[in-house]
């Protein structure tokens, strides 16, 4: 048989016929079959990988250094105040509490809704056209920029029917409050929760559900008692990721929570009066304290950014722990 293509002859390695030690994964096969373009490609891979690491380390180190330099624990409990130099302007306790508030309120809406939608998609899903539309809707919501969600929020919450959720001034509903911000922030977290819970429910094999139906349980009971508890890792992961997105979002806060640095309660009843009023969160505080905003207090900005970063890292760490614990427990047999 003729070969129309030349096969390059193999060259024995220098130094005589040494038997090489056993090869492992990752060993580059050698020079003869790797063309120049292949080797350049591998070099680019290494260079970019190292560059990523370098950038991440630089960002982390810089934030940590600046944060530790400027963060005083008192800042977390002192509200912001007017002052001439940075040292006199107090802290950002309102922003810190504000972040916690929107986190809790946003998740209070997003988590049940997300679980419900995911359950419907996986367990029910009829008619099929509605299921497809729903999937596309969730994907679309994930792709909408949060600034657009914020603008839409202004329309909804300026409606006089919802006046009780924010401040009104001579018949003009202001439309900015913790309620408004949390409602739109829940949309930001929703797709992440839905995706995660869906994955969890899908990973449960069919025979588990069939076993439950076979003893007469309804689908609802099966879901509530068996399937959702079994997907706890994925639900928790989705919740953590969603929460991370919520506390990291700035655009919705800037638009729907107002440009103040302190709480501005409205009306009389605690805690409703705070939630109806405007306020701030860490992200908004960082934005305002940076040169772009109104305050120009870079030191406090670094401090607030550092606190925010720690919160996000804590959430990431929680996701990691959940994953590691889930792997130890093991998976379904089928």
């Amino acid at each position, binding site marked *: 048989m003729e070969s129309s293509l030349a096969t390059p002859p193999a060259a024995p390695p220098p130094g005589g016929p040494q038997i090489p030690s056993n090869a492992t994964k*990752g060993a580059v*096969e050698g020079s003869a*079959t*790797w063309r120049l373009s*292949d080797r350049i*490609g*591998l070099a*680019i*891979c290494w260079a*970019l*990988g190292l560059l*990523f*690491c370098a*950038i991440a380390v630089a*960002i*982390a180190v810089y934030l940590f250094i600046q944060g530790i330099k400027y963060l005083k624990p008192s800042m977390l409990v002192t509200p912001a105040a007017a002052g001439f130099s940075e040292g006199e302007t107090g802290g950002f306790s309102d922003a810190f509490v504000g972040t916690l508030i929107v986190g809790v309120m946003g998740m209070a809406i997003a988590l049940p809704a997300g679980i*419900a*939608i995911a*359950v*419907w998609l996986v367990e*029910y899903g009829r008619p099929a056209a*509605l299921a497809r*539309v*729903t999937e596309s*809707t969730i994907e*679309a*919501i994930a*792709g*909408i*920029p*949060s*600034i*657009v*969600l914020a*603008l*839409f929020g202004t*329309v909804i919450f300026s409606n006089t029917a919802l006046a009780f959720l924010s401040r009104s001034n001579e018949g003009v509903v202001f439309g900015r409050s913790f309620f408004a911000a949390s409602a739109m922030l829940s949309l930001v977290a*929703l797709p992440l929760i839905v995706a995660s819970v869906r994955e969890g429910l899908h990973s449960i094999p069919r025979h588990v559900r069939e076993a439950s139906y076979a003893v007469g349980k*309804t*689908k*609802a*009971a099966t879901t509530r008692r068996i399937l959702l508890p079994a997907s706890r890792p994925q639900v928790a992961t989705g919740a953590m990721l969603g929460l*991370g997105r919520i*506390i*990291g*979002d*700035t655009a919705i806060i*800037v*638009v729907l929570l107002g440009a103040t640095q302190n709480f501005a309660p409205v009306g009389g009843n605690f805690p409703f009066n705070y939630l109806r009023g405007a306020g701030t969160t860490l992200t908004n505080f*960082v*934005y305002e304290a940076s*040169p*772009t905003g109104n305050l120009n207090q870079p030191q406090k900005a*670094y401090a607030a*950014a550092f606190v*925010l*970063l720690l919160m*996000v*890292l804590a959430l*990431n760490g929680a996701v990691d722990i959940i994953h590691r614990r889930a792997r130890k427990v093991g998976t379904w047999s089928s």
Partner: protein
Amino acid sequence: MDEEFSPEYGPRWSDKRVEQMLGALVCAVVGLLLAMIVTVLVRGWPSFAHNGLAWFGPGGSVDEQLNTIFLSGESGAHYVYTFHAWPLIWSTLLIAGGSVFIALFSALFVAVFVVEFAPEWMSNILQPVIRFLASIPSVIYGLIGVLVLVPFIGNHLVTEHQKASVAGVISLSGYSLLAAITVLTVMIAPLMVSIFSDGLRSVKPGWLEGSLALGVNRWRTTWKIGVRTARPAIVAGTVLAVARAIGEAVMLAMISGSVGFAPNPADGAIFIYEPSRPLAPTIVKNIDQLSSPPSNATLFAIATVLLFSAAFLSLTGWAARRAMRKYGAA
């Protein structure tokens, strides 16, 4: 004793009822999305109606036009809607396009590296690094950009001569295209790396092993078979990244410059130092103008453009993925 059952009436939460309730919730969410699209469009319509297709074109200073619009609304007299958004659109294209282009190639190489060629210790470092970068809030990227990168560019990269050459028109103070593209690239690349890596990992190992067993080296196997099979994931990741880049408002508001200026490639080297302001940050910067009706319409018009770009991107991605399904298990 099973509390879900009451002896006379059957289960309290019957499947049918639960299904209806959940179905109602799902319909509500779909309805919410539709309401959003309709509302944004309706609110922005006056701006489009008054400008026609010229809305997208060039013509005059965007900042002046926004100011005029706002003032006309405040005064309650005849509303002015004149608005030509081309500088904003051009800035968006430049910044989003530039950063996605760079991020796409970087992310592809890094994903290939992480999945195939990195030694174990290196992968173990890179995975958390990428997750860390992906989870940093955008405002923190903006903060670092404005406090570190912008001064660096303004003081060390742009020469005095260059600043003087455009002194009358704009100021090259570091709030620039370069800063915006750099930070945006670092922001969206980790997201793309995760999606690409997932795509590469889901390639059937039988194909990769088959290719190796035919005498193709690991690099070419990974690219010709692995990356080729993972093309749908690559498209999906890119679409997501572009949507993110277009919609990024706050970070870009902090570092791209507050001037509605259209960077001009014909300016030569200073092109990358010119300030700009894409569509999304424009909304954030002018959010105080919402109370004035014509400004309100203008801002909603910009939001409409953002919304429909995101939708259009999704559609393109979906179509591309369908076309790729011809030959294989996509």
